[in-house]
């Protein structure tokens, strides 16, 4: 596969390490009252769609960026690649 890195352009997916569903960015608030339940769902439940999937890839043999790749799991077609850091900020994560 080829991942079109937003900074570096097309790179062989073999340079990357896969983590999983991009929802892993949305780590629950440990202070929230149902934190235990939410951490369980965060840690263990997945949509696992047959179709568009937003997923995390780490450019280990490259610039060490974590990316959010939008890929169709039935065709492997990639329609969008973003820096995970930008996505995380956009989704309200900070520090």
């Amino acid at each position: 596969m080829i991942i079109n890195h937003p900074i570096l352009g097309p790179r062989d997916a073999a340079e990357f390490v896969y983590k999983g569903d991009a929802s892993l960015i949305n780590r629950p608030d440990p202070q929230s009252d149902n934190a235990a339940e939410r951490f369980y769902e965060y840690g263990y439940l997945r949509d696992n769609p047959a179709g568009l999937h937003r997923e995390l890839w780490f450019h280990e043999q490259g610039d060490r960026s974590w990316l959010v790749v939008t890929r169709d799991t039935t065709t492997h077609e990639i329609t969008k690649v973003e820096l995970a850091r930008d996505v995380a900020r956009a989704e309200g994560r900070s520090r």
Partner: protein
Amino acid sequence: MTGKNRLNGGLIDRSTSFGFTFDGVRYSGCAGDTLASALLANGVRLMGRSFKYHRPRGPMTSGSEEPNAIVELRSGARKEPNTRATTAELFDGLVANSQNRWPSLKWDAMAINDLFSPFLTAGFYYKTFMWPKAFWEKLYEPIIRRAAGLGSLGHDPDPDSYDKGFLHCDLLIIGAGPAGLAAALTAGESGARVILADEDFVLGGRLIADTGMLADEDGAAWAAETVARLNSMPNVRVMSRSTVIGAFDHGIYGMVERVSDHLPEPAPGKPRQILWRVYSKRAILAGGATERPIVFENNDRPGIMLASAMRAYANRWAVSTGSAVAVFTNNDDGHRTAADLVSKGVKTTVIDTRPDAPDTADYETLAGASVTNTQGRLGLTAIEVTLSSGTTRSLTIDGLGVSGGWNPNVHLTCHQRGRPQWDEKLAAFIPGGTLPSGLSVAGAASGAFSTHAALQTGQAAAVQALGDLGVKSSTPDLPTAEDAPIRVTPFWHVAGAKRAWVDQQNDVTAKDIKLAHQENFRSVEHLKRYTTLGMATDQGKTSNIAGLAIMADVAGKQIPEVGTTIFRPPYTPVAMGVLAGRSRDKTFRPVRKTPSHYWAEEQGAVFVEVGMWMRAQWFPQPGETHWRQSVDREVLQTRKSVGVCDCTTLGKIDVQGTDAAEFLNKVYANGFAKLPVGKTRYGLMLREDGIAMDDGTAARLADDHFVVTTTTANAVPVYRHMEFVRQCLFPDMDVQLISTTEAWAQYAVAGPNSRKLLQKIVDPEFDISNDGFPFMACGEITVCGGLRARLFRISFSGELAFEIAVPTRYGDALMRRLMEEGKEFDVVPYGLEALGVMRIEKGHAAGNELNGTTTANNLGMGRMVSKAKDSIGSKLSERPGLNEADALKLVGLKPVNSDDKVVAGAHLMTKGTPVDAAHDQGYITSACFSPNLGCHIGLGYLKSGDTRIGEIVRLVSPLTGVDHEVEVVSAHFVDPEGERLRA
């Protein structure tokens, strides 16, 4: 003249004659021959035996789709089983042998199977060999296994080397026939980066096998000129002997270049083959088409082959495949073969299934007739023809060409599960469904069969592809060429034929297919799996369609209703060696060496693999005959005086930034915010699921600068994890991470005299006394008169100990200096084993304890998981299942009888309970002989272990025959109070 069947003309070099042997008999052929063409030229038709019935077989084709003529090529360590004689290039001294026969190809004892064929129908083995039960492994299976299989693989390591490489292009063109050449010419002239790949060693596709004219020159000449023209273009890379084996995601193609297979052996330093990973923006499949046979009684004898193959042997290789031949056809192309043969002076008769067959004065045509049987034990001698009148006529011939029409080579279009679609006019499957992204198809592969159509569609495909890339293409003039219409009347199998072969290599007959249908194996995939149709080394290139047709016939359906099977990579079988490339033997993976590696070699150290690292395991001294002697000495001497160990392999990560401390608070379960500058702290890192991930230390060199260490094994995953936390979870933290594992040579200097030793090399302005540099202190210093170094007062051994780091290039010199200066203390270097012994004696957890299922609670570090702050893993570590009352706890174990061993991997049982899984109490993680305690000791996990100190439990290892009593003790065997550390 090489061979009695050699004709005039052809593309062989008669001036270069090659000697070769087949089954020990010497023959000679020419440069440009394949093994098959050379054997045929010498009058050898019998080249193999079929898989199941051991029927005599000769070449059916002249290319890579060959099912029958497969041999063991070369000898000794270079022997290649199952090699197609039809593609093996002849070279001087080539050695080939027939396979899957005994004692000889002519007299094969296993041919007896042919007599028993009524019993050996499709799937018969699923219905028998069941009784008695034990006989399967002992009797039936060994017999079946010995009878099965084709060629045999040698035991010697493959002596050749293989390379892998990476190519980039705008346009990859697969196949160098008329369509591919036209496409390459067009794209090349347009300045695009082009790769033109063809599996053959002479480019031109059918142009070099046929006699058609392009404008006023013959096709082969035009092909040669065009190839020369392409070779002269710097932006075009023409690659012959290069098979595109698979279409993978996003325009990546796998291609195998056979660099040296046409040579007796590869030139020094050169690979046998190269696996190219081709990155293409666009690709054109111009892989041509494959003629298909017609299925009739005894259609598998040597001498019976595809009509197009007969034509190719005559035209390209100047080989006559019979003195008197017939062509059995259902389409006009069969007549082209007849015409070519007649023009070469071969007496030819055409048997055309079509009543309205074209007629000519050049040869006899039997219209509306079909071949209903054949004779000849080891090769064709005669055929029986049933004429349109119904009467039969026997023809005494030694060659029969069969033409059932042509199938486009759609294989690559299926590699991403695209499904071919049926074309009624061509009576063939053409590319359909979703093609691999960026791939288009031209020429015969797309169903454009005439040479004219091939040239035009090739150019059009190139123009289209370049257009997609925004490249304006020039359209060079293409020569005029034949544009004969396709006239084919589907005719798949002669009615009533039983022992008529559909898949010749796997011996699947028309009858087998009917039986599969009768037993409800009706989906194409069931048919394939039940009869093994299309599962042979040719992947059904010549058999699948006929199989479908017969299935459709029995099911009373149309072929497209029955469906089609999709082809899988690779296009043709690929040597495992080239898929591995250079990653084999000692170079399977890189070797990482520590800074003291070369010094340790001089000391005669014994090394051990730790991941990719090579680490000194122990340093044998003269007179030491057993490793234990060395290790015990290293341990005792370190605890008594001082020892030095290379611990460079521990991961080191530079953590900097104004939020560095806050960041470490997130990734470590315990707190780091309040760690003062100049101090080091042990840190336990959890995965988000609450399980211990890694442990190490973090040294605070400045407010905004930490140096974190990880275990050797986890250096990379921990760095990746920290980057995830930094970029994805806390993107606005000001923290930067840099791995510095390799930058520093780091040595543990341990033992009561470690300070004294270090004081001799640490520059005087630095006070490393217990007050000036207490336990867990760290700092940047200089040594040996000004060399920058880092000093940490941390201890894995439990002794007064330091770790000192200098720039890696000085690591070797520092080790030598430490040994020199340490002489007065009888300093010892110690290896991984002694390191392990001392950490077990001290009760420090390591990889065996941090096995990915243990929690801080198991490790006895539950209290370290700070509730005061949020850290990765803290929440999920609270789950009840991870905090049960009888949870495993890390304990020490010591044999009751001091001679008994403690074995890592042994399980623990409560005394008096049965020894079984239900009563399992835990297991030993690490064990060693402790020279300090004078007995074996171990660390292990025991249910409620922390409350069972003093209890005697059973240590059992039925696997290694161990069963004795051990006492549960504190994991801290040595200096439990930690006084030595602080001395």
